[in-house]
């Protein structure tokens, strides 16, 4: 009988479920979204005039009769230099790296681990091991939240050091890029939390539990991969 065909939305020429195909294509769109944000970051990074003072200048004050400029540099590196001004005075420049690579490496590790737990949750869901699915979903959610916690910490730290959206192009493109990534993680947490909540209903996630968790997993892994790219570009590749 061909009754299945008579239900709109269940027919599939490729054999891929419509909803999963939608997710794949949507992720293609997301690539361009993050691509544009990352390009913006790179363009401003390439625009940094050397020495990078005008880019990241923060505080100027006079000390012992000469100008002292302190600030931070996007990458973890310390600049301590003296420049002669046009009028013969000189200024001392003390720049520290604002990015803390060890801390962010930790949060990156957390997010990577969440991909592992996500895989385990999908495995559990597909093989009817509901308890294991729930446990690993919970673990993934917690790891996602920890990652977000790191991000909140980092944003607040930068803020307290004086680096905000409006400070300079680094601040603007950094916060918008990582902020949108964080939002994506947050949406992922919401999706996984809804799945987890729904799995406690009497009917659980229904007969398609494996499918739902797997499709959510596609999104989760994508957001992880994007972070690896962002982490590499912002934190690891020196200016």
């Amino acid at each position, binding site marked *: 009988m061909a009754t299945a065909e008579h239900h*709109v939305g269940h027919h599939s020429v490729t054999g891929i479920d419509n909803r999963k195909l939608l997710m794949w294509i949507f992720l293609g769109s997301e690539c361009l979204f993050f691509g*544009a944000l990352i390009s913006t970051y790179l363009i401003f990074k390439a625009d940094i005039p050397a020495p990078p003072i005008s880019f990241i200048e923060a505080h100027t004050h006079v000390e012992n009769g000469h100008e002292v400029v302190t600030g931070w540099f996007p990458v973890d590196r310390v600049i301590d230099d003296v420049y002669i001004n046009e009028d013969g005075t000189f200024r001392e420049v003390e720049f520290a790296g604002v990015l803390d690579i060890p801390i962010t490496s930790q949060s990156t590790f957390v997010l990577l681990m969440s991909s592992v737990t996500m895989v385990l949750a999908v495995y559990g869901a597909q093989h009817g091991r509901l308890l294991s699915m729930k446990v690993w979903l919970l673990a993934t959610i917690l790891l996602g939240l920890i990652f977000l916690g790191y991000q909140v910490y980092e944003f607040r730290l930068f803020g307290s050091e004086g680096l905000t959206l409006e400070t300079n192009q680094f601040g603007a493109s950094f916060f918008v890029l990582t902020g949108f990534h964080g939002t994506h993680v947050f949406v992922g947490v919401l999706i996984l939390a809804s799945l987890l909540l729904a799995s406690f209903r009497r009917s659980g996630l229904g007969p398609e539990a494996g499918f739902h968790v797997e499709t959510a997993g596609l999104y989760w892994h994508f957001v992880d991969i994007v972070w690896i790219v962002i982490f590499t570009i912002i934190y690891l590749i020196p200016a």
Partner: protein
Amino acid sequence: MATVAGTMAAPTAEGVVWSWLTTVDHKRIGVLYGVSAFIFFLIGGVEALLIRAQLAVPNGGVIDPELYNQLFTMHALTMIFLAVMPLGAAFFNFMIPLMIGARDVAFPRLNALSYWIFLAGGLVLTSSFFLGGAPDTGWFAYAPISGGTYSGSGMDYYVIGLLILGLSSLAAALNFAVTIINMRAPGLTMMRMPIFVWMTLIVAFLLILALPVLTVALVQLLFDRQFTTSFFLPSGGGDPILWQHLFWIFGHPEVYILILPAMGIVSEVLPTFSRKPLFGYAAMVFAGVAIGFLGWAVWSHHMFTTGLGAVPRVVFATSTMIIGVPTGIKIFNWLSTMWGGSIRFTTAMYFSVSFIALFTIGGISGVMHASPPVDQQQQDTYFIVAHLHYVLVGGAIVGIFSGLYYWWPKMTGRFLSETLGKWNFWLMFIGLNMTFFPMHFLGVAGMPRRIYTYDEGLGWEFWNMFASVGALILAVGVLVFVINVARTMRQPKTAGDNPWDGSTLEWATSSPPPEHDFDAIPEVRARDPLWYDRDHGLSQPEGDPDEHIHMPPPSYYPLILALGVLMLGVGPLSHLAVTALGVPVIIYAIWGWVLEPTE
């Protein structure tokens, strides 16, 4: 029927208004798109007429400069985002499931959501006129005039309106990509799909890949305006050229988003009324795909005068000229389709044939300013205005009118009057050529675009007056169409299943089609399936009259979700509390959406 806690009972079909507000039927959504977009088309037309009234004579005093800037900006935004794109969407909605032999799109509720979000975006954009002034920077909103220093709240409406509209188009594009890839009837392989379906698929992918770039640009502009960043403001270390890059990386694919549906329509109309299969089907498909790819490699031809440097200028000039090749292939294929055919000169055919001629004129002027030194003379003059109107009015709009006359019997069961149709055609054809052809002369004579008036004695008087008269004739042509529709809809339904002897699957079902589209899912044995059946004495499978065909029930949630999105967007324009209120609305709608039974 039992409902899950916190969700609404499924709407019943009672009540005409509610049945339209909650519909998930692709045909009805198509009608909603079509009617709304046509109203926006008329609004955009009135804006254009005001512009032409102001420019008819030197030192005209019809409208003041501020309003003039708002009018040309809103005219472009209305025509592009609220008229031509959604008119294309109207055809996608109504025709694609029928042409691929499906009973609906892959995601019927998502489809309804796309429409309601589109309407929300259209209202936000248009309401700006009455709420502190419309955007006035030109449709591409170059920095720094789009920044807070030089432009008012209209720009916020621009940003929010386009973000909302982008969401709508993205949802629709995802839906149609999945529908076309996954929902084709048995036997309808990719290389048997009607060209209109192919062009829709390409448009869907262009939207999916181009919209996120615009979204990023708009978000950055939003941050510049609201949160004092300086992405595009040189005063704060930003880069105004970055906006131009992002905008045109979206913008050039966008022009193909506008034209490909019309090319698809013409590729259906010409074979039917030449009684001949489309010439060079495979070449047509590959030309479309090639345009889809090359369309990504030409954006900087909009930026030849920004000091790109020699190498980029050569690269982008070359790629722009190359894109003329697949375009030319299409033109020759259309001509060859008619060659030796037995041609019926219906109104739809008039529009399609004139499409070829008019689009070619626009294509040729396009290749002219693909050359940087030439473009440096033409950029920002009326020559560009002539080019873009030949491709957009002579191309997209004329193609859409062809589709309206062609598919009207299928959509309504009634024929539009051919007599009024010919009046409609000739008035529009004469009007648009009178309006836009002289703009080539004006451009070469040095008349800049986007000026609200000009002095006498510059030699521009005659052609400006001529163009304004042409615009009036064009408007009368559109009016004749409205009259034609009004009269037709009072006639009885006389159209049979396949009144034009078309070859594609939409003609295999009744006119208008039943709610479930096909009694039995059609079978496709060759390209041009209905002609193959006719020539081989075959027929399409008959439906079982007793069988109950299950269609997705109507739903409130698309409307509610769109309302939530609207509130989210209106917040930054009025009070952030509105945004805060929008969040629970969205959560509620998603909750109900997910738990609503769809079977």
